[in-house]
């Protein structure tokens, strides 16, 4: 209990907690859950984007998309490493993802149907992710905070590239404009859901705030995202699919319509358009790679034996 008080004092003083430091078991568990979910999201997030690598409409866009997907694999690696500092192995985490026990961001259960979706994912999904993640650069747990600094830098680059795709499309021909609007129609609401339910309905929020894992409420971040995105959509000449959207002069915020939380909970429960596809693809890659990983282990063992001999 004394350690608990000391721990809270350190956190309150904005000192970083490091792997070897004592920490409450619940703090450790909360971080493992959050960091691994984040890592899994990077990995699963490669799938909707990977879907357009072979069909990117120009060499420049193909190169940018490849670089982005590569970054995501890199983010996954940092984040798994950060989670490992808390005493969980990557194999365990992978097992949790593949068995469906661990969660990842529900947004990646939506399909990328046209090239414009690659734009919309960059603009809105990475945009929302950054809103969520910037505060995490100051998270009380050192390894996570440091990983997030690097992640956020790259994400904001991805977000700009996504917006740039949307800009090209919205300045393009009629088919391109239609594609862009259709993508916005499909991604807008799921992007708003990325911030999670209202804090009133959200588990873990209060404790995470106290531990400085979390610094803003879900609703605050969502509002921030809407306020940033509406003028961007206007700049693109696209219509946000929300009849209730309007500027509230007094509050200095955009008011928006009600979110269909049933959809959110459905997708979370496994009933999204691509939940099965996403998990099956990861399982398939893992299963197909089993003999390769086994060969690598066997070779390493032989090499070690040869050196020992």
């Amino acid at each position, binding site marked *: 209990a004394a350690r608990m008080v000391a721990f809270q004092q350190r956190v309150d003083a904005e000192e970083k907690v490091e792997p070897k430091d004592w920490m409450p078991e619940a703090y450790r568990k909360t971080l493992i859950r959050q960091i691994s979910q984040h890592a899994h999201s990077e990995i699963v997030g*490669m799938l909707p984007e990977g879907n357009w690598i*072979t069909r990117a409409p*120009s*060499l420049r866009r193909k190169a940018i998309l490849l*670089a982005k997907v590569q970054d995501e694999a890199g983010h996954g690696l940092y984040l*798994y490493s950060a989670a490992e500092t808390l005493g969980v192995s990557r194999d365990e985490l992978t097992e949790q993802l593949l068995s469906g026990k661990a969660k990842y961001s529900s947004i990646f259960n939506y399909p990328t149907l046209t090239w414009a979706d690659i734009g919309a994912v960059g603009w809105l999904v990475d945009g929302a992710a950054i809103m969520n993640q910037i505060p995490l650069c100051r998270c009380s747990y050192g390894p996570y905070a440091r990983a997030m600094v690097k992640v956020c830098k790259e994400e904001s680059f991805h977000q700009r590239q996504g917006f740039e*795709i949307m800009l090209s499309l919205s300045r393009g021909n009629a088919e391109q404009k239609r594609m862009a609007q259709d993508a916005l129609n499909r991604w807008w609401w799921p992007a708003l859901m990325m911030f999670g339910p209202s804090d009133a309905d959200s588990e873990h929020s209060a404790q995470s705030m106290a531990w400085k894992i979390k610094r803003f409420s879900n609703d605050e971040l969502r509002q921030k995202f809407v306020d940033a995105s509406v003028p961007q959509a206007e700049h693109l000449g696209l219509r946000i699919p929300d009849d209730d959207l309007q500027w509230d002069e007094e509050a200095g915020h955009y008011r928006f319509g009600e979110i269909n939380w049933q959809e959110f909970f459905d997708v979370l429960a496994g009933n999204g358009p691509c939940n099965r596809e996403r998990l099956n693809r990861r399982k398939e890659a893992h299963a197909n*790679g089993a003999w390769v990983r086994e*060969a690598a282990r*066997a070779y390493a063992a032989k090499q070690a034996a040869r050196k020992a001999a």
Partner: protein
Amino acid sequence: MSTKPHFEYLLRLGDNALVSGQRLGELVTRAPELEEEMALANFALDCVGQARMFYTYAAEIEGQGRDEDQLAFLRDQIDFRNLLLVEQPNGDFACTIARQFLFLSAYQIQLDELTRSSDKRIAEIAARAVKEVAYQLRHTRQWLIRLGDGTDESHDRMQKAIDDLWRFTGEMFIADEIDEWAAAENVGPNPAALQAPWNDFVQQALQEATLTRPQDAWMDTGGKHGRHTEHLGYLLAEMQYMQRAYPGAAW
């Protein structure tokens, strides 16, 4: 310098890079482990980058106002000049490794010669590409050895992959009039001259991998002259679809 062979020579380089990049790009999100996912995306990116440099220069040489995207997305299969080897499907991971290893080990030697090209622009592109390819080759060679000298299963898969793809290696060392032009102009090496060092390099790696070098027998050829295998058509249909469907659009 003569425009036509110069353009053709650059197309071959560009097409090898692009088709390799497309095949590697197909594998992203399907790799056996996360580190390899990163490597594949990275290598695909290198390839696309090299293709862009070669195409951009080719288009300038041609002087018909085409650009890199028109060369990549609006040419028919019959106009593609890549080696048959690089268009072969990914198959299992051993097959991908075999294809990349057999190609990269020749490409690396070619690029090294191209850094001394009489064409300064090619020399510059090669100087950049040669570093990327050296890294890819090291990585791929390491997998060849790990799989060859890993488990019985991985050994058998790796040997089968090498055996299956061997018939596409001969094409890399056959000079035609374009290659002879390049050699005469000191633009690039005669492909025939690459064979001996390639042989040594490959032989040494296969040995370390406990694999058997296949006998040189009948070799399939034609890629450099637009006579491809049935696989390229599907690759192009997917890769070119957007540009074909929305002609003239900017992305």
